[in-house]
């Protein structure tokens, strides 16, 4: 049986790639090592816990109900509380990081709860402790929101002449409220996120992007050495392009696959299972193949190819969230990530790691990545025609 020429070319490229130590380091050793290091560095952050200060200037029934909520069993798993007599002393404690956030229950809070203009529970936060501040704020807002519905009925009753004893009923009802589970212990999805489940795909994809650089550079080396011309004397241009793309596809899949296997077995990373992980990985690798072709068409020399590939690799990694949790990134970065295939891949792996392992979980990211690959391929094809880039 004849071996297709594209497969012959891919086989040769892979033989050279796997013989090249730098490619092995970039494709396999480095992502594993860095993911493991990051996982160790951030170990424990998935069991988030902090202490919040409480300043009760109200001492009424509603304040008491809030106190019961924030000391409930569910909240204790995330947050401990410490009481302060004055807001100034609580602020000092926040400044010295004795506490990570402060709840200030204003004077007249209980009374106002039944009125038309209810007071709010204020949350003092530190710019350095944003996550604790966000959680505290969410708990306070959740309490107020859930009380809100009952407040309207009480306000109506008081206006109609009912006794203030109805406030006691409202407080009793409020004290039974529990903050939503997703605020307390499960920030997203239905599982808690292990850090390695984010950084393993993050690093795997980041180092996969390096394939753009060494494949493009390899192309120009072949052109300089004349081997590309020699290949062209035996094969069609399309067969050569297909063969080189196939090599990137196999190399990229092997790199990501190894990363998934090793981090799953050794560090317990959750990639969403073999099928779903592959379904996310393949379109990501296809995007890398398309980007590689684009760099080859745009570059005119080995040096240019290296420069362009570096810009693409680090640009995508920064925009796509390979280095930082996108969920804690600024809104602009979260929006930019939507324009990157790695951003979508990471989103898919994150959803798989924190949510159900369903095809519907990855459908949108897969479509987005395939669309990206197609769009880049189309641009490459247009540029190829315009520039009349020759394979030799």
């Amino acid at each position, binding site marked *: 049986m004849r071996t297709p020429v594209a497969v012959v070319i891919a086989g040769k490229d892979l*033989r*050279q790639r796997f013989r090249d130590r730098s490619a092995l380091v970039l494709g396999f050793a480095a992502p594993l090592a860095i993911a493991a290091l990051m996982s160790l560095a951030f170990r424990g952050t998935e069991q988030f816990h902090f202490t919040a200060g409480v300043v009760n200037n109200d001492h009424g029934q509603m304040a008491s109900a809030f106190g019961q909520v924030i000391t409930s069993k569910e909240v204790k798993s995330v947050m401990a509380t410490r009481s302060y007599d004055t807001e100034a002393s609580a602020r000092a404690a926040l400044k010295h990081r004795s506490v990570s956030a402060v709840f200030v229950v204003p004077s007249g809070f209980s009374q106002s709860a039944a009125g038309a203009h209810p007071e709010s529970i204020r949350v003092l936060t530190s710019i350095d402790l944003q996550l604790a501040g966000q959680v505290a704020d969410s708990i306070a807002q959740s309490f107020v929101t859930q009380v809100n519905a009952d407040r309207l009925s009480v306000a109506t009753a008081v206006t109609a002449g009912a006794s203030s004893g109805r406030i006691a009923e409202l407080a009793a009802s409020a004290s039974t409220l529990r903050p939503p589970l997703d605020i307390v212990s499960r920030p997203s999805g239905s599982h808690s996120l292990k850090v390695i489940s984010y950084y393993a795909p993050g690093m795997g994809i980041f180092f996969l992007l390096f394939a753009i650089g060494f494949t493009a550079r390899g192309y120009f080396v072949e052109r300089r050495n004349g081997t590309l011309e020699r290949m062209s004397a035996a094969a069609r*241009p399309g067969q050569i392009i297909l063969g080189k793309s196939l090599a990137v596809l196999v190399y990229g899949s092997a790199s990501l696959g190894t990363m998934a296997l090793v981090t799953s077995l050794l560090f317990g990373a959750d990639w969403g299972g073999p099928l779903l992980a592959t379904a996310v990985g393949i379109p990501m690798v296809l995007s890398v193949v398309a980007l590689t072709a684009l760099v080859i068409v745009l570059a005119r020399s080995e040096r240019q190819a290296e420069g362009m590939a570096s810009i693409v690799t680090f640009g995508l990694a920064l925009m796509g969230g390979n280095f930082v949790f996108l969920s804690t990134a600024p809104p602009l970065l979260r929006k930019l990530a939507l324009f990157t295939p790695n951003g979508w891949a990471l989103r898919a792996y994150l959803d798989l790691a924190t949510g159900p392992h369903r095809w519907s979980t990855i459908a949108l990211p897969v479509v987005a990545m395939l669309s990206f690959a197609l769009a880049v391929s189309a641009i490459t094809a247009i540029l190829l025609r315009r520039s009349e880039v020759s394979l030799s």
Partner: protein
Amino acid sequence: MADNIPSGRGVRDPLLSCRGLVRRFGDQLAVDGVTFSVAAGETYGLLGPNGAGKSTCIRMICGLLAPDEGEVTVCGQRIDRNSVDAKARIGFVPQDVALYPDLTARENLRFFGRLYQLAGRSLDDRVNEVLGDVDLRDRADDRVDTYSGGMKRRLNIAGGLIHRPDLLVLDEPTVGVDPQSRHAILESVHRLGEMGMGVLYTTHYMEEAEQICDRVGIIDNGRLVAEGTRRELVAQLAERDHIKLTASGDLASLSQRCSELDGIEGSTVVDDRLDLIARDGRRLLPKVFELAEQCGVEVTSVEVVEPTLETVFLHLTGTELRE
């Protein structure tokens, strides 16, 4: 040099046929209406200085570059970039060593063989055979980057032979090669011709063309200015002499004055030498010396020789063929 090969622009049942090849790069006309053919068993030399258009012709013949006009056929099949079957009839040996340095000689040849659909036992056998032909069997499993320049050149040729092509195209295969390796390469090419393979050989070394080529095409400024066997080409200068005058002084003036002499058909200055193509050169020598004295040129040596391929080239192109 064999003289029994059909001459002229049309050989019967040519292996390779180039008709009216034209190729431009922007405004520059690199190849201008080149037509020639090569028969099976014939070694055809494309002779010309650097930049004459030889490599562009080769690239069009091998399907690496599309001609703007004209066509190339090999064994009757038209060549273009996608004509894989027709291209498989050609073995291409590029000017530069085009090998993978991080692969062994065997791996390189296996790769090139598999590109031409060789596989399995027949591929292994052919690789061993070709390695033997270029005397590299002992080093077959060493990486190419450990090879000497001459060994790489030999392996480069082996890469073009691996699939038993009908036509071997060698683009200046001896550039930068030591004399021993050059001799080995020329021997190999001569042997291939004898075995019935058509060979297209480009070179700017006159002696190589004289030594191994059955016919020679002289290309200059993209045009094929003459073609034929050595005897046919030299016959164009029958009864003419080649006067080589080594001298110092204003050679340009002397050249100008000599060209006005009756019987002088060509006059070219190359460094400290004046080349004259003359009818009855010996008779003209006293007049040449007289003019030299008038121009203040001091002649240090003079040689009158029978025309050679070099003389023909000089006569046709007005330039000396050199690196």
